[in-house]
């Protein structure tokens, strides 16, 4: 058999930066990350493309850097999707088992799944993900009901949808580089696939990815994603708060946030001050440390509260035994896990990438883009397991690049 290697680009067009990883997918389905590219993002506000040209330039720069780093060309892209425009809802359906002996057939499963996914969307919106919750057979949870005996089969889907125009904008940014988008993956699902172990998902875990412009979260229970969401607030809001509160430029505020920002207030001495630059040059000023911590922790606290509110009754500390897993660039803020633990009432920790991830990619800001590769490949493997049309050969691949 001819060995065929595919080069997959994982792309996250974030509010503050564009991250690209290139994975080499071998015939034996082993994945090696062979290229990294980053670029400061432009033209993206709260996860949505606001300036197509600027966003394209930034994204393409990152793609080129990754290709140069890998020394090869990307065949297709797995693209992260985030933004406040994404919403979700839960819909479920139930069917009575059709067979006389009450044994569930593939047709029963197919029917209940189609019914559960059939809820109409508002005009101009389209589905990004259908996340199936575990089946229920006569009220009991079963991972695979095929050939089991029962009377009533239920299936439920958490459907993530968004406006077609905004989703298309993201896709067109990638198509402008003349690469096909093979998978569109919610950022929170990508981060969750990377950081939450199967045990965490089974026991219940909340993964929160706090980026610069948005905060993505996914709640796992019974081994599958129960709910996802996006809060259009992120680390850049902390910077903005500091800028407004302390009368600083964005750059100065960002610098202070990174050096002295915290998720919780630990400074007791309200008179303690910190230097802006620390070089005692002209323009270097002092700021009260307590104020900085107060501003950042208040915003972090608020973000968690919003997430908790969005989760609503779906979240309960009793059913989230694995706790809260934090990731994203803002998750590097000291004390943020303590804040999460206080807000959600469960243990909280910073997510850690698996051991196979290289040292330079273990930063929390890469968890989402790393997870794109993992989630994309696993979902494709599941799709390939189902009967489907035979994949086309090199000719279709060649024409697909046009």
């Amino acid at each position, binding site marked *: 058999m001819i060995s065929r290697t595919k080069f997959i680009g994982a792309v996250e067009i974030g509010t503050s930066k564009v991250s690209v990883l290139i994975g080499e997918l071998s015939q034996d389905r082993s994945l090696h990350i062979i290229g990294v590219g980053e670029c400061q993002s432009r033209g993206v506000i709260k996860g949505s493309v606001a300036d197509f040209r600027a966003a394209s330039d930034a994204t393409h720069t990152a793609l080129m850097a990754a290709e140069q780093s890998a020394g090869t060309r990307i065949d297709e892209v797995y693209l992260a999707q985030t933004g406040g425009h994404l919403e979700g809802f839960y819909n479920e359906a139930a069917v009575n088992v059709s067979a006389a002996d009450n044994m569930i057939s593939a047709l029963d499963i197919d029917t209940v799944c189609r019914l559960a996914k059939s809820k109409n969307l508002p005009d101009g919106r389209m589905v990004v993900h259908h996340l199936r919750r575990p089946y229920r057979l006569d009220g009991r949870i079963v991972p695979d009901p095929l050939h089991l005996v029962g009377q009533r089969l239920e299936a439920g889907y958490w459907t993530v949808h968004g406006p*077609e125009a905004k989703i298309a904008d993201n896709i067109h940014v990638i198509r402008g580089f*003349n690469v096909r988008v093979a998978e569109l993956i919610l950022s929170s699902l990508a981060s969750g696939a990377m950081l939450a172990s199967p045990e965490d998902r089974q026991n219940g875990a909340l993964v929160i990815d706090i980026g610069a412009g948005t905060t993505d979260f996914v709640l796992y229970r019974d081994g599958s994603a129960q709910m996802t969401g996006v809060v259009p607030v992120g680390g850049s809001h902390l910077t903005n708060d500091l800028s407004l509160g302390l009368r600083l430029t964005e750059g100065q505020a960002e610098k202070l946030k990174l050096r002295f920002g915290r998720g919780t207030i630990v400074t007791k001495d309200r008179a303690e001050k910190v230097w802006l630059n620390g070089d005692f040059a002209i323009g270097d000023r002092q700021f009260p440390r307590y104020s900085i911590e107060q501003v950042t922790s208040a915003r972090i606290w608020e973000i968690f509260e919003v997430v908790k509110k969005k989760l609503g009754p779906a979240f309960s500390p009793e059913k989230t035994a694995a706790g809260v897993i934090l990731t994203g660039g803002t998750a590097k803020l000291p004390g943020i896990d303590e804040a999460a633990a206080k807000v959600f009432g469960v243990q909280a920790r910073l997510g850690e990438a698996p051991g196979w991830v290289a040292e330079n990619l273990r930063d929390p800001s890469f968890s989402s883009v790393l997870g794109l590769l993992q989630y994309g490949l696993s979902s494709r493997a599941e799709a390939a397991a189902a009967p489907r049309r035979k994949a086309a050969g090199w000719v279709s691949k060649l024409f697909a690049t*046009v």
Partner: protein
Amino acid sequence: MSQLTLNPPPTRTWRDIPQTVTPRAMSREGKKRLVFAVGNIVGIVLVLGAAGWGVYELVSVWETNPTRITAAASSVPLRDVTLRTDGVLDKSWVMRTLDLPKDASLMELDLSALQNRLLATGQVQSAVVARKFPDILTVTLQERSPVARVMAQLGSAAPQAYMVSRDGAVYQGSGYDQRLADTLPFLDGVKLVRSGDGFARIDGMDQVSDLLGTARTSTPALYHTFRVVSLARFNVDSTITVKSTEVDAITFGVASDGFYRQLARLDYILDETRRQNPPQPLKAVNLAVGGSQVPVAFGAAGASDDGNNPRTTTVSKTAAPAPFGTALFSLPSRNSSPSKRDF
């Protein structure tokens, strides 16, 4: 539950967004990649098209004029022709026969056509024409050897002597020593049939060749007296009739006990008749009968006799032959068999 409920219309997903390329929405790198991809496709299409066209051209040229294919391979001019043969043909004959075009290159030559030209002469039994790179054509011939001659006329040309080989091929001999050619007996009693530009092969020449070959090696004196070999009765009673300077009709039997014994008997009979006083010229000797007695016919010395109606006279085994007519010539006993005679 209604059919619509069981088969709800599928909801639109992000995969329904067309991923078409709009060049105006592309970055410079994207356009570069697009050009590269289009160039890639165009290149592949061109390569495939060129390959297909090449195959088509090759096939069509192969069918119409195969020499063009070889001509395209190289254009080194032919410098020399080397000849290797087991016969008498020389290089000048080969050059005349091949009639190579002037300044022809080695690869332009159609070896099959050249080989056919050589084989068409008849004198050449097999020919191998090969290229010896870079600029030499080698010709290896295996020639036929003439056994007899035959007078024939092709079209409106004057009758001339053709050579006949052991395998019955009739051809115009070339390069033979005239003295040697003159010693070959003429062939008679055969009907030449046109075949292509020449004649069809003659049956029975292998037997004639055996007879003449045995005579030439065993009794050269006798062989040199042979003038005409007739196959007129070959297909009737398997006999070959030879007219020599001494005997008008010597009949050899193909099915008899070998030409060597028959020639030995003939030699004995001729010796015996020469010893008679006065010598009795032999008109006919029939060696095809075999056994210890040979029918012979005598003619009058100096008398004109066509040998067709000889007077027959029966003589005893030991009696001297009568002056005129036929007789059974008794051969000596087995101990002094003519077959063991020292020629």
